């Protein structure tokens, strides 16, 4: 009697066991902000994950995508879940700087390489025992801020007004802008902040205009970046407009309309892939991404944020074969080898630039990772 029951139980267990899909060889855990305030970053990132190869170097790859709702607590919980429950070999995420900062400890504690999709250089600097495990694909905001300061100096801008998000993105840009402008001898004459959801920025704009800056830099991401510029226009501001690479998607052009014509901003080359010279090694990679993304999500839908996720996967694609030679996926040795392999990557061509990782630079981008563009006739135009 007991024997039969046991047999039934065993059989049931076998059936259940068989029902679970055969686990993939390599697992990549992704936690991004597809809801909440950073949803405009996370959504194209999630769409890009869908484009990634499911096989690398003959090994099956599984991507487990979780949403952290732009919330640091959930980002950390997701990271733990992906590591503990899914035993992932690498982490991608999160979309924002605070969430990524909070994940560093988990990645380091569990010794899992993590590739952040957030901008701040604080994620990988100063390099220490913890940040050893952290890589990032977006350009450091310092690189972008330098580019803006450079352009301003050449355009004869002497005074600048700053208006940015009242969050980590604005904080990061304000710090970098202050540094970059000081280096070029440009004066920052007004600093204003606003929230993504504000319905009016009239007060801030009046304050900016009182300072009479030669140029205004708007540090915001996505469509909310259009509001200060439209209000400045309404109030008759006639100086130059600069935006950050955070606005690089079609929705910004749609909402901004005529009011954002002539705006100058630094961005990754992927935004203007088709305008790049044919000699540029980035062009084919970027064009391939744009083609595949728009095939899946409709024409004009591509956003540079999504490309950061795609770039993370390119890095992994390059590093995984190296790591596979040393250990089997799913083991601590493999994760460690993967980290070493990522750190050793050189001249990896991504959609956003060419990366040369070093033990002290886990971003690895150089000047090739940014171009200056302007907006002309409702489209992005590469500046020489």
């Amino acid at each position, binding site marked *: 009697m007991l024997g039969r029951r046991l047999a039934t139980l065993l059989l049931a267990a076998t059936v259940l066991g068989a029902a679970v899909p055969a686990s993939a060889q390599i697992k990549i855990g992704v936690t991004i902000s597809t809801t909440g305030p950073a949803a405009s970053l996370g959504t194209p990132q999630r769409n890009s994950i869908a484009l990634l190869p499911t096989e690398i170097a003959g090994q099956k790859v599984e991507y487990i995508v979780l949403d952290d709702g732009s919330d640091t607590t959930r980002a950390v919980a997701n990271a733990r879940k992906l590591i503990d429950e899914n035993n992932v070999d690498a982490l991608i995420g999160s979309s924002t700087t605070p969430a990524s*900062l*909070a994940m560093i400890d988990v990645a380091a504690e569990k010794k899992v390489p993590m590739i952040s999709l957030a901008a*701040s250089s604080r994620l990988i600097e100063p390099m220490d025992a913890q940040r050893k495990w952290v890589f990032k694909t977006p350009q450091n905001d310092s690189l972008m801020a330098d580019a803006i300061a450079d352009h301003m100096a050449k355009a004869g801008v002497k005074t600048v007004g700053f208006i940015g998000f009242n969050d980590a993105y604005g904080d990061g840009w304000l710090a970098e802008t202050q540094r970059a402008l000081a280096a070029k001898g440009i004066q920052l004459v007004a600093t204003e902040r606003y929230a993504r959801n504000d319905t009016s920025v009239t007060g801030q704009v009046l304050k900016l205009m009182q300072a009479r800056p030669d140029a205004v830099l708007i540090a915001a991401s996505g469509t909310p970046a259009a509001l200060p510029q439209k209000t400045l226009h309404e109030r008759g501001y006639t100086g130059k407009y600069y935006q950050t690479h955070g606005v690089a998607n079609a929705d910004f052009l749609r909402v901004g309309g005529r009011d954002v014509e002539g705006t100058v901003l630094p961005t990754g080359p992927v935004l203007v892939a088709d305008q790049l010279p044919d000699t540029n090694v980035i062009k084919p990679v970027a064009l391939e991404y744009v083609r595949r993304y728009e095939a899946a999500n409709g024409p004009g839908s591509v956003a540079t944020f999504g490309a950061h996720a795609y770039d993370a996967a390119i890095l992994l694609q390059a590093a995984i074969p190296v790591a596979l030679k040393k250990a089997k996926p799913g083991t601590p040795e493999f994760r460690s080898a993967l980290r070493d392999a990522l750190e050793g990557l050189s001249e990896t061509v991504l959609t956003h630039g060419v990366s040369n990782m070093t033990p002290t630079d886990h971003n690895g981008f150089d000047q090739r990772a940014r171009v200056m563009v302007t907006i002309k006739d409702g489209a992005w135009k590469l500046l020489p």
Partner: protein
Amino acid sequence: MRPRLSHAPSARWLPILLFALWLLVPLMPGVPSFWLTLANYAGIASVIAIGLVVLTGYGGMTSFAQATFMGFGAYATALLTTAYGVSPWLALPASLLASGVAALLIGAITLRLSGHYLALGTLAWAVSFYYVFGNLDLFGRNDGISGIPPLHFGAYALTSSRDYFWVVWTCVAVALVLTRNLLDSRPGRAIRALRGGAGAAVSFGVDLPRTRLLAFTYAAVLAGLAGWLYAHMQRSVNPTPFGLNASIEYLLMAVVGGAGALPGALLGAGLVTVVNDQLQDILPRLFGPRGNYETIVFGALLVLVLQTSPEGLWPHVRSWFRLPGGSNRRSIPDAPALPARPLPAPGAPVLQASHLRKTFGGLVAVNDLALHLDAGEIVGLIGPNGAGKSTTFNLLTGVARPTAGSMRFLGRDLAGCTPPRAACLGIARSFQHVKLVPGMSVLENVALGAHLRGLAGALRALLRLDRAEEAGLLAEAARQLDRVGLAEHADRPADSLALGQQRVVEIARALCLDPVLLLLDEPAAGLRHAEKAELAALLRRLRGEGVTILLVEHDMDFVMNLTDRLVVMEFGTLLAEGTAAEIRGNPAVIEAYLGSVA
């Protein structure tokens, strides 16, 4: 002292056994590490939700600022451990202090607000501090503070979810025990009376503003503890976990679990944490990986749960498992009687009121009333509805301020008297509309009457240093309950009694004050004939002991047979005064009562 039934020992030991088993969970083989992580998040949320049970469930105050107080605790430890290298253990008192002091300051301003104003006040603080946290360089602005050291024993750092599990759940257990201690005490009864019984509590000397502040601060200190736990588990803090949305989520946990009982906090926190996590796994399988349906499904589930159980889920769980609910009263140790106050000699003047007047706008409720009561007499105050009887009661007990006139009680001027002051002087009352705390046991309701005969504060209650005094108060309550003949109902929830019995409970509660003057508002309403006779006998006995009694009553037989004197009011004015026989024959009274029928 009558012997008392106590619950079977299993009921008392069950929680402790369950908790011990729960602590063993991490040692079981094959328990996934992530489950422990989830349990840790649930534990931290539980600590906050326990605070909300005290504040909202018992205290009736809705707070949207619990995550803010959590932030105070978290930032305090983050700052001390990173910038000043303080040990996390030493930072714990600082965290509790930070949230406690913040709550005291915020509470001192905000708790004057009542009802919805209070809820909005806390909401305003929550939004404000979110931006303050995010804009202070000291706090690392919006990026926050990272690199917070983990908790450690010597060189051993508690970084794994398993190690931290024990820390978190020990804190939960401590919070539960402390909170139970607090609720089961003199200040705890005052907190529990805030919702539904505040009007009565204040008439027995409860300092309402202080009690509200106590509940508010206690809940905030628990949130501060949660913040400390959070900071050392997460090892980084920034403003997002301490914003308005987080506060709303904690409130939601308490309500879903059932804010009326402590286990509801654990249930709500655990359930919301697990459901949030499971939706992430289940929904992509149902709808594909491209959508974000978690919030939608979570919101819909929330509404459905509330529709099936508006009081939260805990009452259901309790009845499924047939767990004893509400008060877990143990047998009451016999304690020496409390010191009684000396009563004035029979016939000595107790209360003299003259030219007493109260107007509401243009309406004169009490008009130049003169009233005197001597020690050891029962006086009936009668009159048609709207004659101003209850208003007179309110004037005598300080609930309402007279527009003009003077009142003296035992030679002291009652001008500017407040209800707690009246209670202090020895004026106790019952209410026309019964004011008992519904969920609290009959005994505890009665013990509320002895509030002024104890001194124990929250700290002594938390640490159980109040047991001797508490035994005295409860024994006194049991004695008074026995005296009014309701001893066998001591452990029942007050609202389960018949209305007439509830009125008698109010008398027992008033007696607990050890009154000089007893004001009873329709004590016999809803009583059966035999019960009325018992009540009359009790009141006569009290008179014999020297207590002075003024009662409002519509049952004429009862009044006529019991009272020494009658005072008749009509339209706020004194109509007649005299013995029962005199009043019966007074033509003005007959006219007023029987009107055109006569």
